[in-house]
């Protein structure tokens, strides 16, 4: 049992090391990669623009539910006026970066894992290598850089629509005064809270997109599955590990910054 535990630990450490090397190589390969801007724009479009509707919908409903629950809970203690800060700080410091990252992993991350996995299976990555084109610079670097742009912006959108959702719940559907809601948010949210939110968004972006790229890039190395099944297994693995990674990293960052 001790041997199995040791082997599992070694495998986890080894895979974490591989992922770290992969990520560093991915970012580093951006240096000198030709026509990176065009591929970066496409990656921003795929991770950002195409995921915007789901971010706006989930953000709005999160704010609506948060406003509803918080109003009734705070009202029991006669503290309904604190609803704005509660909704805002919950969104800014926790829910917006975490839920936006999970949504982006579900839509953009899974799609890019499958795309790179298929490119690996159909020898497109081998073809890049034989043409003297670094597949890291061509495929991985633009997606990693796009994640650093898209995740903070999407987290910002999530927060904004979440706040509007909270306002709809508390001030339109329930009797809280709108000016109290917005003024209390303005007083409660500090620069450090926004900074924590952005740090989380950046870390989640780099972590999840690196995981997704890594799984797609190594789809052909999956044991027990080949071809299309290897791609689907890699995609599932990427989404599961990215989701766990987001929650684990969230705890780590929060414990460091709180």
């Amino acid at each position, binding site marked *: 049992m001790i041997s199995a535990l040791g082997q599992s630990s070694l495998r986890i450490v080894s895979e974490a090391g*591989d992922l770290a*090397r*992969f990520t560093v*190589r991915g970012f580093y390969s951006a240096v000198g990669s*030709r*026509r990176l801007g065009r591929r970066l724009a496409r990656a921003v479009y795929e991770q950002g623009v195409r995921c915007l509707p789901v971010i706006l919908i989930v953000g709005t409903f999160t704010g609506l539910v948060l406003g509803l629950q918080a109003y009734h809970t705070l009202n029991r203690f006669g503290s309904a006026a604190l609803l704005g800060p509660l909704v805002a700080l919950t969104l800014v410091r926790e829910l917006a970066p975490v839920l936006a990252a999970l949504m982006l992993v579900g839509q953009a991350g899974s799609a890019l894992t499958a*795309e790179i996995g*298929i*490119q690996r299976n*159909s*020898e*497109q990555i*081998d*073809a890049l*290598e*034989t*043409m*003297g*084109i670094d*597949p*890291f610079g*061509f495929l991985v670097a633009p997606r990693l850089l796009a994640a650093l742009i898209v995740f903070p912006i999407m987290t910002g959108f999530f927060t904004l629509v979440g706040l509007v959702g909270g306002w709809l719940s508390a001030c339109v559907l329930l009797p809280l005064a709108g000016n109290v809601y917005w003024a209390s948010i303005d007083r409660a949210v500090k620069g450090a809270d926004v900074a924590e939110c952005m740090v989380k968004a950046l870390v989640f972006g780099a972590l999840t997109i690196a995981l997704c790229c*890594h799984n797609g*890039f*190594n789809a052909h*190395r999956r044991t027990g599955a080949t071809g299309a099944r290897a791609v689907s297994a890699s995609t599932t693995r990427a989404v599961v590990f990215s989701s766990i990674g987001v929650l684990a990293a969230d705890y780590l960052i929060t414990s460091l910054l709180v």
Partner: protein
Amino acid sequence: MNEPENVPLLATRALVKRFGDQVVLADVTLEIPRGRVLAVIGKSGTGKSVLLKCLAGVLVPDGGEVLFEGRPLGSAAPDATGLCPADTPGAEALAAFRRRCSYLFQGNALLDSLTAWENVALPLEQATLLPKAEIRVRVTEALRRLELEADAGRYPAQMSGGMQKRLALARALVTRPEIVLFDEPTAGLDPVRRNAVFGLIAHAQREFGFTAVVVTHDLPEALAACDHLALLDQGRIRFSGTPAEFAATPDPVVAAFRDSPAALARDIASLRAGAAKPADYD
């Protein structure tokens, strides 16, 4: 091009490649002289494509070595971590080799997110410093030669198998390489296009003087268009020589391969004549 003429441009020495317990290449020693077109023939599953991938550095041999202008090539194939080691011995020679080499994949390996034009322009845009105008001229010319000018804006998925093959061929030739590795360039093409592709390879070879290795099953076309043939059998080079030597050798394995069309014709003729089935079929 300062290399001595007697050093083959590309060569393998005792090349071994295994996949698990299966030995695909057992001991392949082969020389590809500069400016020649070598056809590698053999039954399906004998490792022809594996040999080509080892030549291109896509697969890492388990033994032996690939020599480019007499110098061993390294490997840029990903290691167990999925990373491509850049500091392995011979990696510099491999990078130099790739700048001068093109590879036509059996499955074409076209980038499906790019149009036909973008696929052909890709190696020029990403791996050369050519100005945009020159790239435009070269891509237009490559597409025109392969009768794909009208399809420049289409994606590979919107093309037939034959068109995709021609597109892959255009991409392989657009860089005007010194070495071209063709992995079944005529697979899936009709006879007219098949002959046209072999004709194109022969004409392009004459025009640009590249060295070519063509893995193919099309024996008559290979005999007509290639200077040299190598027959791969059970992981080893069973025969290597000119088409004339191929026609004359008494080797039974070569003879079986060479004479299979005639054997089929005889078999069909006997069937039509109502004769009994040959004993081999029982």
